[in-house]
């Protein structure tokens, strides 16, 4: 058994993982990052549109501040987020953007003087302030009161990840790429490292660490049809679930992005609509202002996606061999704009579907895009119930997004949370000694080896690719944008069946090396179990909140459901166990979002009583004590000044 010891083991080398690596390496700790792929190929590289921070440099962002950003975020979350965490995020986002500039990101900058832009799709002349010339500029995104999304053309994730990785290279941080973490090693509520498998040659390697950080990204690929990279298979959240101790939170909160292209489901950024693009129907009629007179195409994603599906259901979709879709109209933005600020979008349309967006309409429809759910952590990023285990980025439920995250808030979360959680990891690690329990590591390794033997030599007859398709199918058809009891019941039944069948998977070739089919087979149990959790969570939640929409329960129910779903899968159990905790201290009382319509059932208890229960409730549900007490970062009623 090959064993490698380190202070900090970071599983995942996207933006969130790298930011934690930098924070801890700067504290002179030994750090190793693991990744399925070379760090720069992580999915963060694919983010296009930008990241939100209330710098307020552009004239269209004038007067912006963290409190306004916070209000947008809390409303966007449909009050499902932890308001204190959202506050920590908005306060630090401007610092993070500037720090990334310091690391080398070539942010687009303010150009003083008159500029022609589109506002609510009308060509408008604005005057940028000469005083602000050369500072980081911003574009419009959905669900925001100000232009706040910082960008480098439509390659923001790419430039930010490259700058971050440059810093990691400069600091000499070790990366072991093509290494997949398979199992966490833990004992008595403490994480001691991980068992991994090399995707180069199939070798099993054990890492022992003082602290372990999961930064593995989202689980979008469970849906099959998704804008996500093919490696976003929820392997990191599975690592946590597999412990039987650490809960996954709000897994039913799945975001659908309004503009995946048809076919191929590749994303074209929200920046398209932010920059003035419009949505048209089969008659080339612009329908969004009819549904959302105020925000139009730039309501939050959950709302725009629902409106689009609603419009398609009215027969206004465009028929195609790949199903009905709508159009994204970018023609009026002009060639110059499309070949500079939306260049990736231009390339994607041209190469993948042969559509020239300068002259033609782009076929789009809502497509699975983001995982609000994930490993439940406290505000330090420390996982519930497991000392020494942290989670950060899309895989974590830190919970600034609640039931719908705003565009541009996720990429920003990775670097902000990376910064904050990185500090906590460093602190924790410095006060911890390495526990090298080789016998324990061997037990966990043996479990993995047994699983491999079973898959290669067992007597099963299930085909892993078939099961993957069935999972995707069940989620797509039964746990989609519009949900209802009947379809969810059916989805749960199908997925329970699939979970059972994963025990009988058989790999067809015993080829040596990484063996791609074996690699997939090793992931299938985690995929099936998480899919079932998504479906059961959605069935249990008899209300509509953010991206979770129940046709049979269309109201947001703050009397009964102003809470967060927690799911665990105890070792050996047939089914997951559900629990619910209060969302956190509420400063902005639940109200109307200002878009999306819908009814709200008011809270049964008053705000103060709710808030008084939070700390104790979350502690009972497994939360480790955060370094600072609950609610301390939330300035009381600061929002009243911004209103």
């Amino acid at each position: 058994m090959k064993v490698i010891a380190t202070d900090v083991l970071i599983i995942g080398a996207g933006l969130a993982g790298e930011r934690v690596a930098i924070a801890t390496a700067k504290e002179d700790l030994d750090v190793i990052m693991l990744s399925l792929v070379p760090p720069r190929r992580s999915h963060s590289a694919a983010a296009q549109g930008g990241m939100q921070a209330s710098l307020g440099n552009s004239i269209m962002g004038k007067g912006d501040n963290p409190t306004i950003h916070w209000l947008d975020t809390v409303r966007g979350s449909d009050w499902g987020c932890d308001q204190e965490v959202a506050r920590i995020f908005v306060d630090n986002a401007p610092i993070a953007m500037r720090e990334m500039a310091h690391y080398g990101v070539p942010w687009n900058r303010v150009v003083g003087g008159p500029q022609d832009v589109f506002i609510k799709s009308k060509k408008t002349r604005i005057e940028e302030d000469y005083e602000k010339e050369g500072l980081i500029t911003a574009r419009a995104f959905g669900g925001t009161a100000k232009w706040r999304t910082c960008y480098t053309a439509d390659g923001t994730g790419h430039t930010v990840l490259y700058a971050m990785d440059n810093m990691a290279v400069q600091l000499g941080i070790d990366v072991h790429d093509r290494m997949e973490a398979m199992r966490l090693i833990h004992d008595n509520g403490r994480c001691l490292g991980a068992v991994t498998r090399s995707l180069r040659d199939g070798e099993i390697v054990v890492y022992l660490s003082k602290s372990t950080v999961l930064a593995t990204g989202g689980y979008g690929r469970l849906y099959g049809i998704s804008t996500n990279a093919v490696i976003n298979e929820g392997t990191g959240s599975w690592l946590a679930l597999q412990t039987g101790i650490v809960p996954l939170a709000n897994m039913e909160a799945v975001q659908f992005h309004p503009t995946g292209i048809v076919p191929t489901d590749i994303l074209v950024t929200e920046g398209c609509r932010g920059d003035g693009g419009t949505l048209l129907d089969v008659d080339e009629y612009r329908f969004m202002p009819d549904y959302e007179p105020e925000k139009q195409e730039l309501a939050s994603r959950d709302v725009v996606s629902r409106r689009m599906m609603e419009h398609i259901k009215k027969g206004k979709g465009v028929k195609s061999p790949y199903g009905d879709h709508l159009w994204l109209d970018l023609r009026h933005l002009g060639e110059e704009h499309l070949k500079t600020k939306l260049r990736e979008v231009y390339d994607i349309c041209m190469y993948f579907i042969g559509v020239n967006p300068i002259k033609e309409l782009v076929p789009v429809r809502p497509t699975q895009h983001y995982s609000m759910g994930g490993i439940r952590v406290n505000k330090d990023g420390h996982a519930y119930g497991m000392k020494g285990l942290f989670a950060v980025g899309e895989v974590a439920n830190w919970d600034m997004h609640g039931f719908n995250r705003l565009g541009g808030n996720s990429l920003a979360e990775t670097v902000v949370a990376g910064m904050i959680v990185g500090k906590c990891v460093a602190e924790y690690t410095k006060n911890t000694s390495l526990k090298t329990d080789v016998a324990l590591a061997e037990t966990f390794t043996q479990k993995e080896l047994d699983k491999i033997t079973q898959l290669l030599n067992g007597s099963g007859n299930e085909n892993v690719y078939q099961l993957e398709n069935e999972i995707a199918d069940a989620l797509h058809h039964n746990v989609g944008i519009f949900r209802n009891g009947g379809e969810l019941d059916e989805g749960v039944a199908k997925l329970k069946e699939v979970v059972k069948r994963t025990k009988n998977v058989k790999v067809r070739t015993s080829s040596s090396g990484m063996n791609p089919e074996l690699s997939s087979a090793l992931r299938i149990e985690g995929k099936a179990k998480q899919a079932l959790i998504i479906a059961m969570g959605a069935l249990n939640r008899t209300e509509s909140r953010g991206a979770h929409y129940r046709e049979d329960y269309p109201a947001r129910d703050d009397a009964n459901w102003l809470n967060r779903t927690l799911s665990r899968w105890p070792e050996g159990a047939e089914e997951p166990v559900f629990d619910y905790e209060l969302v956190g201290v509420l400063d902005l009382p639940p109200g109307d979002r200002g878009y999306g319509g819908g009814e709200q059932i008011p809270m049964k208890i008053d705000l103060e009583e709710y808030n008084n229960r939070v700390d104790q409730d979350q502690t009972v549900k497994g939360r480790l004590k955060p370094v600072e007490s609950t609610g301390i970062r939330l300035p009381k009623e600061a929002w009243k000044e911004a209103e």
Partner: protein
Amino acid sequence: MGRTLNCKIFRYNPTKENDKPHIDTFYLEETPRLNLFTALSKIREEQAPDLMFDFVCRAGICGSCGMVINGRPTLACRTLTSDLPDTIELFPLPFFKLLGDLSVDTGIWFRDMAERVESWIHTETKFDPIAEEERMNNTLANEIYESERCIECGCCIAGCATAQVFPEFLGAAGLNRIGRFLIDPRDQRGNEEWFELISTDEGIFGCFGMMACDDVCPKDLPLLEVFAHIRQKMTGMTLKTLGGFKS
């Protein structure tokens, strides 16, 4: 009726005893708008479960899927079969370490390149979290972005004659990385440091300037202009080093 595609794929598993490089042929029904990501995934699911290849973003953004397609190094995910003849020949990118079949280790090479060219902003300035960011002209930001767009796919290296005979050569991607930091005012490297990096056989002297790289780069990076700028800068530095001019 769609075409039947005849996919001839290079196979070799270095971890398998006695395996020898060979070609396997797979037949596949062409569907509308089929790209090589979907095609290869289908072949793996239905015909060759042990076939190795790399895709991540499948959107032409992450640089994972460089391979030689009918003789040309390019991104497989955004190559449509409708742009190819009935017979499709797929080989791994040459130059890089072969991991198996169509999968090569570009990651290690690019990390090494980043270390060699010190691909980061060299600065003495400390980050001040409460200070306003340093200003930059937007035109310059856009120019830096042009070079920054490289996705490290390795196609330019695979297509470069120098790289094949001289493995230490930094290649177009390496030279482009130098060019990116050369124009960034935040990077405070001095002429001497740049000179040491550029005017070597690993650097610009190794380059024949036939621009195969420029021809294959799937992101259309302005490599020609970047190289011209590097040469120009170097000439300026040479003159200074020879003691001719002071600027």
